[in-house]
């Protein structure tokens, strides 16, 4: 349990900051007033809980946030009933779950969903049924290319690109290897973003895509090194990235390239898992602010998790995304005059005013367009022996694919 230490330290630090702020800090973020008693407003989420990895963290922080809302005035007196379904990483299950939430339960919106497959499976269904979705964290391309789904995060494509931009601007990297799982609309899509940006900048980019089921870290590392690039971006989930860095350590390749990763490796357990060898040598791009940052929202997130969440709920960047999704949908619901229906909620989402948060770099809004990618800027962190420290504040990941959204 060595890796639990940073979490404990972070919790202690928060305890300090809480002590210095008024005790109502947690409640301020979720409202004020008496516990809600009226007819519940149903909000759904679909997360990939059982399966290759547990993606339920965002729904847990959203649930904690809604509990806090219900204890503090609710949505103008009405409580939120938050319904979470597990899609088990299976499109069929995801489709059934969406039918259950939307048709059978009659949810007015979705918030905090995090899934590898749900966006692709259900995007059309949400559009046909006029359901607005604020995804806690979107991973595959489909989450960013649907009229009714707006993820809180930047997405791994922009995060991978962000890591490259930082190395290009600050470390003089002029050639890159993008290492990613070969899943359609996932790994290939991340690396294409790097290539499109690279083509504009005259930067050389190579891809090392691999079958996610058969990961051979040593051969991947050697393949990447053979391309002779300045920087290697390990665009993998943390459990896959760890053996890759271990394999690179075995070959003593730390100084042979600049080693980078997207948000997925920004995990409190990661530094201990890859070991001291890599301290100071791995940089990661992060889509939300650092987990121990002291802004209003990060502080509120942690205190709400302590008060309304379970001790076992993760305090990770997915959790930050779920917190934000819940907070934003709460604000939108509270602002609706008249009946709260899926139509009025979707309309309110599409016309909402942009929201600022210390967890984000820029203001976030759902937006009216055919696709959504409001969060486009992030930060860089560098791994230390026992954690991560911020090495660069907000900067935009300038993906040519975003031209339609920017215009």
């Amino acid at each position: 349990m060595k890796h639990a230490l940073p979490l404990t330290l972070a919790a202690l630090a928060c305890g300090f900051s809480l002590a210095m702020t008024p005790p109502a800090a947690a409640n301020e973020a979720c409202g004020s007033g008496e516990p809600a008693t009226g007819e519940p407003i149903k909000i759904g989420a679909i997360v990939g809980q059982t399966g290759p990895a547990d993606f339920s963290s965002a729904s847990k922080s959203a649930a904690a946030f809604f509990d806090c809302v219900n204890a503090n005035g609710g949505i103008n007196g009405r409580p939120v009933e938050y319904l979470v379904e597990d899609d088990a990483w299976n499109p069929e299950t995801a489709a059934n779950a969406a039918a259950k939430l939307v048709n059978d339960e009659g949810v007015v919106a979705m918030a905090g969903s995090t899934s590898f497959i749900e966006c692709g499976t259900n995007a059309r269904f949400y559009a046909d049924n006029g359901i607005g979705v604020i995804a806690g964290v979107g991973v595959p391309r489909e989450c960013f290319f649907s009229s009714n789904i707006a993820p809180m995060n930047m997405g791994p494509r922009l995060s991978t690109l962000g890591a490259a931009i930082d190395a290009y601007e600050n470390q003089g990297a002029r050639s890159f290897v993008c290492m990613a799982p070969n899943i359609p609309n996932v790994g290939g899509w991340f690396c294409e973003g790097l290539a499109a940006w690279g083509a504009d900048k005259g930067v050389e980019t190579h891809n090392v895509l691999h079958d996610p089921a058969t990961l051979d870290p040593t051969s991947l590392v050697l393949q990447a090194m053979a391309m002779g690039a300045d920087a290697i971006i390990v665009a993998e989930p943390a459990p896959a990235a760890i053996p890759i860095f271990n394999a690179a350590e075995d070959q003593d390749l730390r100084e042979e390239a600049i080693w980078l990763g997207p948000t997925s490796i920004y995990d409190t357990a990661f530094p201990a898992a890859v070991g001291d060898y890599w301290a100071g040598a791995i940089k990661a791009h992060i889509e939300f602010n650092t987990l121990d940052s002291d802004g209003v929202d990060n502080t509120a997130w942690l205190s709400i998790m302590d008060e309304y969440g379970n001790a076992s709920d993760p305090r990770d960047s997915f959790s930050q995304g779920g917190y934000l999704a819940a907070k934003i949908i709460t604000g939108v619901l509270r602002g609706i005059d008249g009946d709260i229906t899926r139509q009025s909620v979707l309309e309110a989402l599409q016309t909402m005013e942009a929201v600022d948060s210390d967890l984000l770099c820029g203001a976030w809004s759902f937006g009216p367009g055919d696709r959504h990618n409001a969060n486009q800027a992030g930060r860089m962190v560098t791994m230390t022996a026992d954690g991560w420290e911020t090495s660069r504040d907000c900067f935009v990941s300038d993906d040519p694919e975003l031209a339609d959204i920017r215009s």
Partner: protein
Amino acid sequence: MAMSETSRTPLPHAAPRGFLAAAASQHGGLITAFFLMALIVPFLGSYWIKNFTSMIAVAIAAQGVALLHARLGFVSLAGIAMMGVGGWFGLRLAHATGLPFEIVLVLAALCTGAAGVLLGLPALKHRGLIYALITLMFAAGFHVVVSSIGFPDGGSGFWGRIDGSAERQLMARPAIAASDLAYFLYALAIAAAAFTATHIVTKSAVGRAWAMIRAGDAVAHAAGVRIGIARAKAFGLAGALAGVGGCLLAGSIGQLDGRSFDPVQSLLLYGLVIIAGPWSLAAALIAGFLYRMFPAILDSWGVDGDIAITIFGLALIHAIVSAPRGIAGQLHDLTSAIQNRLSGVDR
């Protein structure tokens, strides 16, 4: 003996009360189950309607697995994978041609039937465990390929995958069955047709030839059965059934993902067919129920759906040790016992 009185029947094997009446007496429980589903499922809500639709699709594919096991004695550990093949053909044909769903369904069934015959080719040389392993390897291979390439989603080229910023297309449902409920009833009707077709085939010359092969190659030869062709027909029919199931599943969700088709699922389906008792036509429906609905029901009770696997394991041991004719056999025994008790007939 009363033999001489009945001996005047011109064609003794022909059912005296007509085909439908005979089927009704033999498969009364199955027919009742279909009617009950048509009556009850519409009132269960969208989630259960979708689950029942998936179950029906799986049941059709399971009919093929049961057919190969019970009629030919072949173990196919590629039931769900073949369903994936059917789904692939269905999606590819639907996106490429835009033909009505019914035509796509028939074409997908034919293509998957042909694939089934190909998968049956090793059966000319290998039986038992070796053939079972060959089908399992096929299932694993299919999973690897379809996981990396993905199912067709409206793109161009042979694989039909979109790229760039094009939107993934969903497979169009039949014009008369666009809603979830209508589609469930549509799938139920297709399943009834598929089960009836299977029943007719097993009662036809082809089915008799299968029974002879099962009795032994020597006697099949002696009875003039062309074993290779008869087997190919079984593999073709099993493939076509999987094709229909896969295509219905694709139509239900609109798209498919490799994750639904990993080899463990095929293995599980085979186990459930054995538990259900493949010698009965109803087994496929029971297997489909166990495969798709049982975990969903556990889930709705707040029990982890994965525990279903453990329960299935115990049920399989029970089926092998003490109920070799499976659940369908036990149900059949129960209903015949009741019928006999009621009519006072001792069979």
